[in-house]
């Protein structure tokens, strides 16, 4: 193998694939990235056995070949090379030599034959989704993904076909047991028969990285156990979480009849301000709702108290409710419109929140007892 490639092209491809590689591995070759030169293109592959990514980039290839080298080391080297440098890679026996300007590195290789290949298997359901829609599905839900390992089936985004009043939609749901986020987009052609799947958190993060640079249609292929995302230059294959997502629709209350409408920006800033005073990890904020205003208050036995009054559109019976301010801010961050709508029942029941300008997203937040 012998090739030359522009530093920035190599860096971009490497930075996509290296984040899949775990920092510590018990199987040495999992720390490596596979480099393959063929058909006038350079293919970089990385995997953690649950998730694999293959990224293609153009290169000036003098001789085809393939090997594997430590991913993080290679990434760090290329990152530190000067901008615009031409990087030469050549494989000789068991080492890969990297030349750039006057720098020269020799990296130990492991044989590419040992590199685990993740086979996608049969992927019967195929459809395409515009990148902005995919981005929406991820961005509006991923903050609610659980990190707690015991309920592994909550460690991802649940993607499935939902039957609503306005026909079928493709819906993403995530919850950590404290709050829930749900967002939907129009059902793409070909997705109708797909099973409900749980995309793991790490895969969601990797996909999201590509969406910043990619504008077109994403090709999605999936089965019960695996999913594949096809971008212009990269293919991401991932296992799915093998579990049953809970029947989340039960926890979304229907009958909450106390409607609060408030400026999202003002609300968010006020919550952030008053929660400064709370010193402990629970970070609770109390909301007192009265006609056309709400009063935010935080009490810390150590630091003191904070209150702030906000004008709001509220005409139901006065009530008080406590929330984790962090959770509240997470939801308010997702609201793009000027106004946020909250439907409440009482201080011990879940509250439903929506973006005033966006019907397709919905959030459920469980209150705190303070």
């Amino acid at each position, binding site marked *: 193998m012998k090739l030359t490639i522009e530093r920035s092209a190599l860096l971009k491809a490497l930075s996509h694939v290296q984040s899949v590689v775990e920092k510590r591995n018990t199987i040495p070759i999992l720390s490596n990235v596979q480099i393959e030169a063929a058909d006038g293109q350079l293919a970089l592959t990385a995997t953690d056995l649950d998730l694999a990514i293959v990224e293609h980039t153009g290169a000036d290839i003098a001789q085809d070949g393939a090997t594997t080298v430590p991913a993080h080391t290679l990434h760090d080297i290329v990152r530190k090379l000067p901008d615009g440098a031409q990087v030469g890679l050549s494989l000789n026996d068991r080492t890969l030599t990297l030349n750039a300007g006057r720098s020269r590195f020799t990296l130990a290789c492991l044989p590419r034959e040992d590199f685990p290949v993740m086979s996608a298997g049969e992927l019967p359901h195929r459809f395409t989704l515009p990148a902005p829609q995919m981005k929406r599905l991820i961005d509006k839900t991923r903050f609610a993904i659980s*990190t707690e390992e015991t309920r592994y089936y909550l460690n991802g985004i649940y993607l499935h076909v939902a039957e609503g009043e306005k026909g079928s939609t493709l819906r993403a749901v995530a919850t950590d047991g404290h709050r829930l986020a749900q967002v939907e987009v129009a059902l793409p052609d070909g997705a109708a028969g797909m099973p409900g799947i749980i995309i793991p958190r790490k895969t969601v993060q990797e996909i999201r990285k590509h969406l910043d640079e990619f504008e077109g249609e994403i090709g999605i292929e999936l089965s019960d156990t695996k999913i594949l995302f096809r971008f212009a230059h990269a293919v991401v294959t991932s296992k799915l979480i093998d579990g049953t997502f809970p029947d989340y629709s039960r926890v979304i209350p229907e009958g909450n009849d106390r409607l609060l409408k408030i400026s999202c920006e003002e609300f968010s800033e006020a919550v952030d301000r008053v929660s400064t005073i709370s010193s*402990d990890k629970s970070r609770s904020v109390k909301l007192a709702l009265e006609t056309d205003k709400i009063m935010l208050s935080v009490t810390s036995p150590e630091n003191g108290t904070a209150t702030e009054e906000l004008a709001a559109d509220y005409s139901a019976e006065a009530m008080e409710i406590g929330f984790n301010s962090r959770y509240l801010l997470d939801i308010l961050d997702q609201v793009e419109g000027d106004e946020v709508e909250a439907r409440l029942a009482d201080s011990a029941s879940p509250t439903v929140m929506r973006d005033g300008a966006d019907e397709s997203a919905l959030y459920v937040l469980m209150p*705190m007892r303070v």
Partner: protein
Amino acid sequence: MDDGKSGRIHLLDEQTVNQIAAGEVVERPASAVKELVENALDAGAHHIDVVLREGGKALISVTDDGIGMSPEELGMAVERHATSKLRSAEDLNAIGTLGFRGEALPSIGSVSRLSITSRAKGADEAWALKVDAGAKTGPLPAALSAGTRIEVRDLFYATPARLKFLKADRTEQSNALDIIKRLAMAHPHVAFSLSDGDRVLFRAERALSTGDDAQKARLGDILGRAFTDNAVAVDAVRDDLRLKGFAGLPTYSRGNAQQQYLFVNGRPVKDRLLVGAVRGAYADFLARDRHPVLVLFLELDPHAVDVNVHPAKAEVRFRDQGLVRGLIVSGLRHALGAAGHRASTSVSQAALGAARPATSPVTRPAYGEKSALGGGFHDAARSWQAPTSPMPEQSRFDPETIPVSARHEPVTQEQEQAAQREDYPLGTARGQLHETYIMAQNADGIVIVDQHAAHERLVYERMKASLEKSGVARQMLLLPDVVELDPDAASRVLARAEEFAELGLVLEPFGDGAVVVREVPALLGKVDSVRLVRDLADDLAELDQGLTLKERLEEVCATMACHGSVRAGRRLTLDEMNALLREMEATPHSGQCNHGRPTYVELKLRDVERLFGRR
């Protein structure tokens, strides 16, 4: 009747019955010693002398100066269920003596060569009775000035199977010694001695003083002076229960729980209730693998406790377990709280030991004597006990008392004067060494404070106080967690649901053998509630109280306290140091950090003088 191997049902002869009973009552020489010494105590003895040969296998001899027995009583004494301590079944409900079953002597007699010599009080002659593997001879006239002497020779010779299971002489001897020590702790007004025929292994003189002093002196004899110097007196009363005794300071802790003694109405017992209660009371001050040393005497109405549970009476049942546990926990907490910021003298002794010059010109054996040093410290420490209430709330907003603010105002005249006063227990700060240790001078010594450990404890205590005041905020769960347990564990956990709810964990029953978690303490964040509940269930099974939850909350507080406190390496001004010292004096439990290590060491001036050979 004797057809077939299994034969017909028939009554066992008395000798066999006694040998079977012996299996339960007399397990090893130590248990025979226990029975005999308890008899002596019940007979009102003032001196009890025990001799053991070959760990008690060859000879156990117990001599007392009690009321003795008449020849008629002697004959009765070795009959099964013959006792002077119980008249009717009613008496069983209110047992005031150590023995009562009437099983000990016949049981011992059935497996050994037993001889009893006794002279009843006021009688002119003594009588002796011999029992050889159950066969009685006598009583015959004998010579003895007063009291009773019981000799047990060749224990278990009649039951060779049991004989084989005895341990080495030394082990049996130390078991017996342990028994005598336990009994001696509870009876300071009785002199005890134990010898192996040649050497005296243990001797405790009769205490001449009364009350706590006698008790303390006796405990000092047995557990060592270091214990009494580093223990606080416990005295708590609730309803008809009275708890007395001595609890070791957290800084005087051990690697195992062996030195924890509980006496119920003078009877040494081993009870898991004690283990749990002690762990609960010390949870704040000790790492999990450290155990305090303590001796507790529980006195209660004999009706409220059943001692007739175990043949050797090692276990008891309380009518109201919760009350007893509550009393022990609150009694210990209160006593430790009153100890305030005391750290153990063993700490300062260790420091002095390390400071002693290697090439000491004159060796002074008296130098390290614990009593002089410890006593002085102890007295001084007692006199500091007044400020035990937590910091008043408003002081947190009072800039004068903020311990380590970054104020750099010029020192006013008034402050300077205050700083010169040396009647503070922890003294006045003189400087900071290595940006880690505060050196302070008090009326009669030097105080060295570890600034990080001390401040960490202060922050922790403050956090705990505020947690207690404001209650634990609870995050309700959108998706409640169902925890599968076995039905027993589930009902145990649910029985305490109210207690857990106060700590932020709300549980409800969910079918048979499962509970559903509705709310969790917000402080714990996204907690693995399944494991938490399982751990609580295990705690309840093992210790009869759910410590895990409280420990988890305190762990979070402790971590936050660690991050929120002044680190080693931070330079402090004199004002800051003095503020820290004053707050330590005002905060309970500031003598040790969250892991039981001392936060400060005090060196007495006279000890420092000794270091330099001035004394």
